[in-house]
């Protein structure tokens, strides 16, 4: 029966999409909001990269919500996985990285940090921004974990440091927003003047917001991947009925 239901669902979805495809105006978007933003963004926000201007300026609370979604996912993963650490006796089954991975990791780590911070700080000038730079930073720290998993597979990444960076960066993002609310403006209104378009220190608080987003995303994803790496491998007991039936 289940496959029949799923067949009906996919057939319905495909038909719905075909109806939509037949009706859609290809290639001529009305550009109502987009056009207005393209005209006003350089003046109002002062960022060369208009996508970042929209991401952290016009739709700032979307980005805050999205930041919280990643935080919720990382915290929920922590809730799910950290519980298992008590009952896993032996470490992970991953062998420490070979010679190539270790030297590669040592070489890559500084480069990835530089690239990551470059992308974060130039978010308002060139393509890129908080998220992409944050992921690169997370990759930089995770390469070290892969190269030298260490006894418990966490490669020495201290979760307290990650918790601090993650918490304070998120709080920093909101503090910048509250600061503009405090002195009379609206939440997340741009501050600190626009500067000269194209300069590093332009577009007011956008670089600061990008930095906060980048640090938070980087710390979160590094913590998330390290938690996954710390999990013991494979089913310890094939199918225990009496396994911990919860508290």
């Amino acid at each position, binding site marked *: 029966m289940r496959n029949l239901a799923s067949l009906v669902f996919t057939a319905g979805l495909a038909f719905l999409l075909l109806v939509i495809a037949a009706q859609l105006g290809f290639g001529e978007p009305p550009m109502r909001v987009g056009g207005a933003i393209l005209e006003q963004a350089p003046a109002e926000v002062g960022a060369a990269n208009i996508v970042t201007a929209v991401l952290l300026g016009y739709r700032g609370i979307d980005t805050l919500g999205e930041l919280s979604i990643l935080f919720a996912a990382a915290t929920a993963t922590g809730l799910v996985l950290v519980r298992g650490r008590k009952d896993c006796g032996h470490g992970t089954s991953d062998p420490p990285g070979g010679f190539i991975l270790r030297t590669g990791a040592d070489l890559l780590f500084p480069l990835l940090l530089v690239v990551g911070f470059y992308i974060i700080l130039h978010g308002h000038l060139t393509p890129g*921004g908080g998220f992409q730079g944050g992921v690169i930073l997370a990759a930089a720290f995770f390469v070290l974990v892969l190269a030298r998993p260490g006894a418990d597979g966490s490669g020495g990444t201290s979760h307290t440091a990650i918790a601090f960076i993650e918490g304070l960066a998120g709080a920093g993002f909101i503090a910048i927003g509250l600061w503009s609310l405090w002195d009379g403006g609206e939440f997340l209104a741009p501050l600190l003047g626009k500067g000269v378009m194209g300069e590093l220190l332009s577009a007011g608080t956008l670089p600061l917001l990008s930095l906060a987003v980048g640090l938070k995303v980087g710390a979160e994803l590094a913590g998330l*991947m390290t938690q*996954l790496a710390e999990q013991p491998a494979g089913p310890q007991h094939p199918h225990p009925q009496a396994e911990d039936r919860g508290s």
Partner: protein
Amino acid sequence: MIPDVDLDLQTLFALVMVALVLVSAVLVLILDNMISAVAASGVVSLGVAVLFVLLHAPDVAMTEAVVGAGLSGVVLALGLRRLGLWQLDATDTSPERRGGKPDA
């Protein structure tokens, strides 16, 4: 620019990339070996990142490449490793190890 041939270069390139993406998307569902399925999903992400470049969306292309191919590939591979589905040789084909193909 090449004289205006009926199918200009960009549409041809887009056609090739879309074909690659769709084929690897189907492969993700069909391949038995889970590692190759994860690899195929990485190819889908990278192909879509290239399509984003064609659509003049560099920010999104960078995000899709870094997050889609890089991060989700690492997370899925780590998951495979911990789920014990990480078997490179195809000899070990017990249904549980193979991950069970969808019955079409």
